[in-house]
């Protein structure tokens, strides 16, 4: 099996995010960058499949920058240290919308010919929750989003996936190749071990200028355009109450909600 796992570089979820005064983006000074948490789960799932299916290969793929302050190589090295076999970085400094990301990934799929692409269900920066579904459509492949369990058939020709949906858990089955997007409870990602970090230095991290993909027909023009960013309206902190009785009283007489 060949598995691609997608990696996006995002601000650490613990970082407090501030909008630039001119509304063109977020303040990136002092931001710690990490692998998108859902992508860590995707990498872990790919590695678990590799451990089960002899002769499998896991390749990380990312679209992003290769120099500070947006050097995705850091995150790819971490993924390689977790155990992935190789990585491909499509180099661009542009912030691309999910549709363009999906188009670029589709180009990589053409050349890499994976049996499975595992992605995060959403990037915690743009919170779009879209690239996986878009990639599935562009390739004409089946998709299983919000996966909490992935099982391959014995011959690795099909996958059965449990998905977290609104009313509970849905089970889907489809022939491979296909796209799976990871939800939070799919697995608990491993940490990179010290030997893993040493080994990662020797693994291949291939950089492809996005222009090369454009020459091969990639359309990088987006369909959406950021007009501005602003901080959300601030919610007024209320008051502390002394007792349960006072709380219930206020909810009844002042807030009138019970």
């Amino acid at each position, binding site marked *: 099996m060949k598995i691609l796992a997608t990696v996006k570089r995002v601000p650490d979820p613990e970082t407090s995010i501030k909008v630039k005064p001119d509304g063109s983006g977020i303040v990136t000074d002092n931001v710690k960058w990490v692998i998108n948490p859902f992508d860590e789960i995707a990498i872990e799932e790919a590695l678990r499949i590799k451990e089960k299916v002899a002769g499998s290969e896991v390749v990380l793929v990312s679209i992003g920058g290769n120099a500070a302050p947006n050097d995705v190589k850091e995150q790819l090295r971490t993924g390689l240290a977790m155990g992935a076999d190789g990585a491909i970085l499509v180099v661009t400094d542009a912030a691309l919308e999910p549709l363009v990301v999906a188009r670029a990934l589709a180009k990589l799929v053409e050349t890499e010919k994976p049996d499975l692409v595992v992605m995060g269900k959403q990037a915690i920066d743009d919170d779009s929750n879209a690239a996986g579904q878009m990639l*599935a459509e562009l390739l004409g492949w089946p998709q299983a989003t919000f996966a909490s369990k992935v099982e391959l058939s014995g011959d690795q020709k099909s996958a059965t996936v449990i998905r977290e949906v609104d009313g509970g858990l849905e089970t889907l089955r489809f022939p491979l190749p296909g796209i799976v997007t990871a939800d939070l409870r799919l697995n608990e990602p491993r940490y990179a071990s010290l030997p893993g970090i040493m080994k990662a230095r020797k693994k291949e991290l291939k950089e492809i200028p996005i222009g090369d993909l454009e020459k091969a027909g990639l359309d990088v023009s987006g369909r959406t*355009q950021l007009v501005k960013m602003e901080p959300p309206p601030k919610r007024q902190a209320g008051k*502390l109450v002394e007792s349960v009785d006072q709380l219930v009283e206020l909810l009844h007489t002042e807030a009138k909600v019970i």
Partner: protein
Amino acid sequence: MGDVLVFAEHQHGKFPKTTLVAFAAGKDAATKYGGACHAVVLGTGTDALANEAAAYGMQTVFQVENPKLEHYLADAYTAALAELVKAKGIETVIATATAMGKDLTPRLAARLNAPLGADISEINADGTVMRAMYAGNVFATLKLAGTTRVISVRATAFEAATKDGAGKIEKVSVTLAEGALTMQFVGLEEMKSDRPVLTEARIVVSGGRGLKNGENFKTVLEPLVDELGAAMGASRAAVDAGFVPNDLQVGQTGKVVAPELYIAVGLSGAIQHLAGMKDSKVIVAINKDAEAPIFQVADYGLVADLFKAVPEMKEAVHKLKS
């Protein structure tokens, strides 16, 4: 011109409140874009649903019946919708950002090579939309290029539509190419509950890791939930620890709710949790740590041990009602 098509998601022969929100958002979009608002009902045995959608003021309800559409599947639903959009000259497709809406709309947008407005909270006449990013830390205004667009709307951002019209119903058949559809529905394990649905309830009581275990959700939290006739929610930590099922998670990556009253019990109020409940009308926090971030958004905060405060609150509410 500028016609809008609302994807009318249904479950068990009914429209959940989230679909009524889509009807409302569709009408809002149609007014702003200067077109008519239609809806589409996909599935089998959908006559009653089609009639009901018409009563919500959808000008035409396209009823697409096909055995391949009996269960929601992203590939078949995308194919059916794309065909309808083209046949009827639809410019804007609107769905609610439910699990189904989030699964479907990006795929449809890619199929139509249309811009996607994902989980948006405002639709503007100038072709821009507003959406939250970075777990609600940023509000972004996006311009959607061209005339065909796909939008999923945040369920809390629009009021549910009311029945105010009588549209017509048009049966439409679609060609679903055999070889192209490979996804297969195997089953749905539903979380059954007698309580109100989380995304529809007037009151939500959510528990966090402070509850310590699933048993305490039952013996400590649930009596208060039921006394208030509320829905129950939870933090990710509580779900991850297996205290409650996943469909109760509120937050950036769970459900977004905005009830009249949200009571957060033994949960710290991480930004990812706030992203899913910050728009509630009245927020109450019960936490033993006065520094917990949840107090920064709470209208009423009680610094207390929940194991004492929650049973007391249940009694006080009971007394108030009698």
